[in-house]
Structure formats: C-alpha cells, structure tokens
C-alpha cells in the first residue's frame, strides 16, 4: 500500500490539467469487493467559499465517488448541513457541481479542493406545491360557502343566486385539484428542494390572490357578466376546459420525455394527442394553456381582480418561458427555429 500512496503523492504535483484518475500499474488482486479495486485514493478538502476556512478533510475517497456521496460524507461531519443545502463548487464564485459528477472526471488533483456554500434551509418541491395549491382550493371554498366573518352576518352560509358563481367555483376548484394531483402523480422534478423562504413568498402570492378573487366572485353584491351575458359565460367555459385539457396533455407529454427517476432533458415534440401539436409553434405550451385557462376564467367571472391575477401570471410565465426557451436553444443545436417561448410568433 505504501507504494500506491507514494504514487498518489507524485500525481498531486502534476497540476490541474492532468488526468488524475489514471492509476499507476493496477494492483493485481483477485476479484474482491469493489472498494478493494480502487488504486489511487483521493483526498478531498472542503473550504468555506467566503472565509476559506477548512471545514472538512476527507481522506481515502474513491476516485469514482460522486459529488452526492461527498455531500453525505460532509454531512456526517457537519450534521446541520444536510446534502440538499450544500452547494459544492470548484471555484468560490463558480457554479455548483451536480450530484452526479464523478470525482475523478473533475479537473482536480488527487487532493481535491472544493468550496462550500450554504444554500439555507431547504424544503421539498412537492411540499411547496401541495401547500401553494391546497391553500387556494380551501380558501375559495370558504368564500363560496360564505363562512362567517367574511361578509355581513345576514349572508352567512347563504348561496349565490347566480349560476355563474357556482360554475366559477367548480372551475376554480377543478383547476387546483388538477394541480395537486399532477404534483403527486405526474410531474418529475429536476431538483428535489428549493430554499425555505420561497414557500412564504409563493404562498403569499397564491393564497393572497385566491382570497382577493374569491371575495368578489362570491360576494352577495356580485354582478354577473353583463356585456354578452350567458353567451359570454358559455364561450368562457369552453375556452377554460379546452385549455385545462391542453395543459394536462402537455404535462403528460413532458413527463413521458423523462424516464422515472432520471433527470434527462430532451426536446419535446408533438405527439398523437392534438393538444400537443402546439409544440410546433411554442416552447412552453403548458404556460400558453395556463394563460388561456385564466383568460377564460376572467371572461367567465368578469371580475377585475381575476384580470389582474391573469396579467401578473402572464408576466411571470413569460419570464419563465423565455428562460426555458433560451436554455433549450443553448443545450440543443437542432432546436426547431419556428418556436416562440409562449405565444406563437409573438412572444
């Protein structure tokens, strides 16, 4: 073993450009456990990205260890930093390394130096989504059933006399129920977690707007659509349902692009489902359909707060769509040129 360690030491002086993982003469051993086959062990030191303090030193690290495994080892010496809140990078100001990156394929010597940044308390995406969407679902129903202390006491537990109010409640509840079920059964997330403070930000947005809309739609003094009346509501409902089905179809198509448990990324293409043919013109049709649904809901309820919610959502989704479109273009050379981020030919 002594000779091996010496060889490891000379490799260290070879500099960052060398391929450190190439072992010296492989030790001839009988087929033993995988651990015994490793020849050149790495040493890993982890420094704080800001203060450059040495936080952790790991010796005898396998060359084929992944960043994910190194994170678990780091977690053992610093139990307050679970793996999800660790950002490990080669350069203090550089990008985070991925969990799948393998130690020996990184541009490091056999003593690898990594920099650590604390990402802060993390919360799983699933938890965030369930809380974000559960809130609006329940809040709207509270307003619909006119729970006490919202409207004047004489209206407690009464129901609206306008049929469009019942319809709106069904649509709103269906929408958020669909989102909850998709979160549980359809979506495949690239990241497991997000920073904890996001849940406060997101919930304020969703819950706040849901309460604001629900207050007016279910208000005893609500005025149903006046411009085109019943016809307006009917058309609005068709638009809403069409876009709900479309949005769901896109989610299924995106899910099918990614095998279970993987994090691969591929260009989405139209499938046999006609609702996915919009992929020919748009990179993020899930946002397009989402905008369409809320546009339909605005038309159905003729309520200005709903229009504001639709507008704000449109702005946010456009920002996201443009970002996604840009990363598609960067990642794939052969990305179809006809596609726009969110609105065909326009945006």
């Amino acid at each position, binding site marked *: 073993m002594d000779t091996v360690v010496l060889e490891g030491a000379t490799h260290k002086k070879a500099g960052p450009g060398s391929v450190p993982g190439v072992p010296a003469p492989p030790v001839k051993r009988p087929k033993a456990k995988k651990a015994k086959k490793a020849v050149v062990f790495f040493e890993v030191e982890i420094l704080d990205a800001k203060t450059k303090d040495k936080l952790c030193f790991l010796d005898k690290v396998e060359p084929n260890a992944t960043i994910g495994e190194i994170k678990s080892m780091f977690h053992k010496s610093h139990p307050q930093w679970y793996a999800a809140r660790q950002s490990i990078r080669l350069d203090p100001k550089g990008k985070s390394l991925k969990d799948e990156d393998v130690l020996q394929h990184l541009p490091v010597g056999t003593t690898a130096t990594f920099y650590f940044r604390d990402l802060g308390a993390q919360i799983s995406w699933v938890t965030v989504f369930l809380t974000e969407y559960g809130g609006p679902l329940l809040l709207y129903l509270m307003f619909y059933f006119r729970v006490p202390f919202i409207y004047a006491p004489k209206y407690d537990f009464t129901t609206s006399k306008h049929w469009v109010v019942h319809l709106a409640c069904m649509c709103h509840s269906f929408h958020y129920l669909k989102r909850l079920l998709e979160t549980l059964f359809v979506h495949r997330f690239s990241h497991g977690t997000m920073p904890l403070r996001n849940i406060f930000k997101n919930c304020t947005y969703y819950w706040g707007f849901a309460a604001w809309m629900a207050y007016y739609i279910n*208000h005893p003094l609500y*005025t149903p659509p006046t411009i085109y009346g019943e016809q307006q509501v009917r058309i609005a409902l068709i638009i809403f349902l069409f876009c709900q089905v479309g949005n769901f179809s896109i989610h299924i198509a995106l899910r099918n692009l990614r095998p279970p448990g993987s994090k691969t990324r591929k260009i989405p293409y139209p499938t046999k489902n006609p609702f996915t043919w919009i992929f020919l013109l748009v990179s993020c049709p899930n946002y397009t359909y989402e905008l369409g649904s809320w546009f339909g809901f605005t038309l159905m309820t003729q*309520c*200005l707060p709903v229009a504001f919610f639709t507008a704000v959502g449109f702005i946010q989704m456009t920002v996201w769509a443009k970002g996604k479109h840009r990363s598609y273009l960067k990642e794939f050379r052969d990305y179809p040129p006809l596609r726009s981020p969110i609105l065909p030919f326009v945006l």
Partner: protein
Amino acid sequence: MASMEEDGSVEEKDNNNKKRTKSAIAVAWLTFYNIAMTAGWLVLAMAMMRFYLQKATHKGLYKSIARTLKFFQTVALVEVGHCAIGIVRTSVIVTGVQVCSRIFMVWFITNSIKQIQNEESVILFLVVWTLTEITRYSFYTFNLLNHLPYFIKWARYNMFIIMYPLGVAGELLTIYAALPFVRKTGMLSMRLPNKYNISFDYYYFLIIVMLSYIPLFPQLFFHMLRQRRKVLLGEIIVEKDE
C-alpha cells in the same frame, strides 16, 4: 482599495470609471438636467422664504408654490428613465419607488385634498425636500463636472440623518391629517355593486401606506448609513450574501 485618489471616495472613483464609458451626450444631458433641477429647487426655496418673510405665516404658502413644486417633482420621473437606459448606475426599482412616493404625496395627497394644504406638516416636508434636493442635485452636478467640493459631499452624506426622519414625520402627519377628509368625501373609492366586481377604499389604502413606512423607512435609512460609512469614512464593508 489600492488606488484611492486624494479626494477620492469609492463613489467618485466609480463615477470616473462610469464617465469614461458614458457617451459625451449622456454626460452633457445629465449635467444640464442636474443644473436645471438644482436651480428649480433653489427657486422653490427662495419662493418659500420670500412668502414667509412677507406674510409672516405659512397659510397659503403651499398654494403659492404649488405649480413650481408639481412641475419639478414630476419632471423627476425622467430619472427612472436614466436608470433604465443605463446612463445612471442605480437600480430602476429603487429610483422608481423614491420618485413614485414623492409624486404620490404631491398629486394624491396635497394637491387633491385642499383642506390640509395649510397644515404645518406640509411645510415640514416641503422644507426637508427642498434642502435635500438642492444638496443632492448639486452633488450630482459637481460630480459630473469632476470638481466636488468636500462640503457638498459632507452635506449629502450627513444631512440625511436629520432630514430623513423629519421628512417621514412631515409626510406621515400630512397623510394622517388628510384621513378624515378622505373618509367624508369618499374620493378615489369605488363600491360594490359594479360591473367590474372590484372595490377600492382610498381611506384604508392610505392607512396601509402609512403602515408601510415602518418596514421601508429603516431599510432606506440604513442603506444611506452604509453608503456614508463607505464614502466618508472609507470603510470597506463586506456585503452579507443572502
């Protein structure tokens, strides 16, 4: 910092670097703009002093300077544009919030609610604004001309310690005085039922505005304190990352 000029401050050095990359037109326009604004607020200051010296009362003072005030304060919107096109390196949002809060006070409080125009709190914030703006615009002017007298820099980074709290007091007291009149007239408010299915109560909106000073004012104040430490005392402050 390794190469600190003799008169130098972090901001000044940054301004020099900025200027080197700024076009001559931008510099010329900004110099003209800042001189014009300094002059405008000086005119306001003199008009206010003259009124008070002649009439020995503050009643009617606002009315006499209202048009000039509205003009120069509204023109300040242009500064948001400066940030947006990049000839001034400040965040669009920060500038936007500051200018909008001024515009809000002028147009939606003092201009629209005539009954509070003779309040003492109005004179308070008018004096504070005038002194602050004259200092600020002359600071920018001298910076652009590369000849910043120390006393102007001193004034800009020290006066705010008194001016900010006084200004906030003046504004809050004015809004508070306006509340009963807002409630009585129901101005800018909309009630149900209506075909847009929305309602807005300006009275409660004003209360929320007043409450928002609580989180916002300390942030602005401590930001200026930090700038002061950097510029006047040469401290190097390591920003805490989020």
